[in-house]
């Protein structure tokens, strides 16, 4: 049509009777979020342009107005309450003073970042047959240009105009009637929107697909379980590959130097019984490196071969350029649900280092290629086997952080967790307390764990050695993520409903706020008009904090 990008060409101006308005034809191109801006989002720390800040997923904010010295003065600026009884797992995006978040399951909301007042709500009703394993949740949006992208719990991918909240297109990624769903934030690479399908606790076959950002047309699709004749298919006995799970349900990463995208994959299905799927079950519980243009697999690393303990590897891949054993390495840092922490070379997939970061009893070392060595008998048995860590993990999906200033990896997880796995049955808690490692909930709950039962921590790890630098200990476990900032602050929260700030160098508690609901999200930071804000979702609400400003 006759629009002039970037201008306001009006062919017949006399037809507009009202003179006081200078209405321009779309000026969108000027203010849109280009892929270049997303890649280099660290250069505009006032904004938060993707799930964990940049495609490297470091969840590090370059803002430094809030410091260890003044953080104790943080004040609540506003709360936005969702009309939802679901967990609030979304990390908001911040674009030039506008926040975009999701009201679970799949309503998109645009808020003024200074006041929390809504500009618009895009309401979406998922199909009635949509099923999710662990809550009708959404972890976040992506933006490119002036368009927001959201995966839905009925496994659609939607494009929504970021200015007006109007639906632009709606594509089916997979069928919700076949138990596929989407809960993760999409990954933008150049002109593509890349997203994966959840549902791997049921009989699905996990997928990652790329769509044209403009039209929603599918460009490629990668199956996380190889089909007949493809390498890796032989790691599944019989036809188990067809319904072997390996869902993808957390944010991916992108490395522009190699044009590779990285996604963690979920457990093989059925979760706790591997008797019908003999073999390593590739590429379940793995990280897959996929060429962004072609969708072809470049490399993979499997964290937990032939998993019978529900150790999804759907943690957020964290990419960092670090000095490792005396030379620079393009690394990938990974704190896995299976209790092991890893440093991988993200260009080749080479295993550089791995070690337990919590009590682990199912493996006792790695071979030269980084394959874990199983401890005999630590599998589901008729009488039940005690396994550490718990099936919910040492950590689960909550996004960790890497600070390029300290060079440390910050992870919220839990210690001393264990479970008993019995052949053919769902795992049960170890010991008398069935509530050691319960799932995240919306509201606060009473809590009874003793010292020997699972507890939550935020820890700093040195990627050189994967040794712990410090620990901040909570009573209850945590499903909250971690943010670091350029002033060496660490923000996190947990099931107890506290949102807190720690010293990134020492782990000392510097500030806390009781939010009255469980923190099930990763914090993020942005600034508007020179004022830094830190947000986190807790309960069913989004909270924004800042230092005291002028009284309005």
């Amino acid at each position, binding site marked *: *049509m*006759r*629009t002039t990008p970037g201008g*306001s060409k*009006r*062919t*017949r*101006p006399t*037809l*507009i*009777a*009202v003179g*006081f*308005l*200078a*209405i*321009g*034809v*779309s*000026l*969108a191109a000027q*203010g849109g979020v280009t892929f270049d801006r997303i890649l280099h989002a660290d250069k505009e720390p006032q904004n938060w342009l993707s799930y964990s800040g940049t495609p490297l997923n470091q969840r590090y904010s370059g803002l430094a107005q809030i410091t260890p010295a003044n953080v104790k003065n943080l004040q609540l600026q506003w709360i936005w309450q969702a009309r939802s009884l679901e967990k609030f797992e979304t990390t908001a995006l911040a674009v*030039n*003073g*506008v926040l975009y978040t999701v009201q679970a399951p799949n309503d998109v909301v*645009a808020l*003024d970042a*200074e*006041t929390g*007042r*809504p*500009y*618009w709500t895009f*309401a979406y*009703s998922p199909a*009635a047959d949509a099923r999710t394993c662990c809550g009708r949740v959404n972890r976040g949006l992506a933006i490119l240009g002036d368009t927001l992208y959201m995966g839905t719990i009925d496994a*659609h991918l939607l494009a929504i*105009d970021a*200015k*007006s909240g*109007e*639906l*632009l*297109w*709606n*594509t*089916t990624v997979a069928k919700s009637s076949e138990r596929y769903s989407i809960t993760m934030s999409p990954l933008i690479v150049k002109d593509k929107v890349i997203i994966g399908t959840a549902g791997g606790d049921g009989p699905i076959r996990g997928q990652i697909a790329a769509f044209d950002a403009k039209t*929603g047309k599918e460009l490629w699709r990668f199956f996380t379980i190889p089909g007949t004749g493809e390498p890796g298919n032989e790691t599944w006995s019989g036809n188990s590959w067809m319904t072997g799970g390996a869902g993808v349900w957390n944010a991916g990463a992108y490395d522009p130097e190699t044009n590779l995208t990285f996604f963690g994959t979920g457990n093989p299905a059925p979760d706790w019984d591997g008797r019908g799927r003999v073999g390593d079950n590739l590429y379940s519980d793995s990280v897959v490196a996929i060429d962004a243009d072609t969708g072809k697999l470049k490399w993979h690393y499997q964290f937990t071969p032939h998993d019978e303990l529900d150790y999804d590897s759907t943690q957020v891949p964290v990419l960092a350029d670090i000095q490792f054993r005396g030379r620079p390495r393009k690394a990938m840092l990974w704190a896995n649900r299976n209790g092991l922490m890893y440093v991988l070379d993200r260009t080749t997939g080479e295993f550089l280092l791995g070690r337990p970061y919590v009590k682990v009893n199912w493996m006792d070392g790695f071979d030269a290629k980084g394959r874990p060595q199983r401890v005999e008998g630590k599998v589901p048995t008729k009488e039940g086997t005690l396994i550490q860590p718990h099936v919910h993990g040492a950590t689960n999906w909550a996004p960790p952080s890497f600070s390029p200033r300290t060079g440390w990896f910050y992870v919220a997880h839990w210690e001393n967790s264990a479970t008993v796995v019995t052949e053919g049955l769902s795992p049960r808690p170890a010991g008398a307390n069935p509530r050691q490692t319960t799932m995240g909930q919306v509201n606060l709950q009473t809590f009874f764990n003793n010292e020997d039962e699972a507890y939550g921590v935020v820890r700093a790890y040195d990627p050189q050695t994967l040794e712990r630098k410090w620990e901040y200990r909570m009573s209850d476990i945590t499903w909250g993520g971690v943010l670091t900032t350029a002033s060496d602050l660490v923000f996190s929260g947990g099931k107890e409903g506290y949102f807190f700030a720690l010293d990134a160098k020492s782990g000392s508690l510097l500030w806390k706020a009781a939010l009255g609901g469980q923190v099930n999200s990763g914090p993020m930071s942005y600034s508007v008009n020179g004022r830094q804000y830190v947000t986190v979702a807790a309960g069913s609400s989004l909270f924004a904090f800042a230092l005291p400003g002028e009284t*309005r």
Partner: protein
Amino acid sequence: MQNAEVRMQKAYVVSGFSRTVAIAVVVSAFCILHSELRPVVYAQHETAFDVEEGGRAFRNTCANCHGPDGNEIAGIDLGRGQFRRPMTDADLIAIIRKGIPNTPMPATNMTEEQAARIVAYLRSTAASKRTASVSGDAVRGKSLYEGKGNCTSCHRVNGVGSRLGPDLSRIGQLRRAGELETSLVDPGAEVQPTNRFYRVVTKSGATITGRLLNHDTFTVQMMDSKEELRTFRKDDLKEHGFAPTPMPSYKSTFSQQELADVVSYLVSLKGTTRS
């Protein structure tokens, strides 16, 4: 349904205490008058919000099969209250929620309250203006929309055009032909609350106009004429208030035939949703 009816009435009684006495009296009187005719009339105390929400839900859920006017299935004209057999509000609510077995009418996951709002909307349309008789050409209408009418300078269709006015990509699902014609010839006659125009003058003297998206005691949210989402604190403003719609009347710009053509084009816009 019985339980549900009781629940609805209880809900009313409870909330009635917190409402104004006047409303309670009016509604109670209405209940008494109509209790013989319709066993339970959910829509009897609907608010404008209920009707608007019901209309939105109708357009999102029902209009795909029933059409924007509710008359695209033979023997059924929802907008005129014509069904294949007599229907009470309770019957309609049950059908909206549970569907009709062995027919294409599916069950939904709506609550009773949501279904009741759709019924409220349908009842309200029975009394409203009917579809205009239009015999236009949508292809010619599209040319007029883009050319002589210069509609893209304010409106957007499938991602093309300005966002300042209402997005028209799905307008054929949302509005009837008669309503669209009215908007073209007498745009000020009925402006949807979500499309109202607003004007602020800052203390530094800048005047900003745009579509009002939200406002409260302290702040105003607008999409300004550059299509930016803006928030203003009222303390920072010298003036602020509603402004007349910038939509011109096309009464003298378009001939009757041209108007019919543009309306035809607008009616043909059903959105880009696909699956």
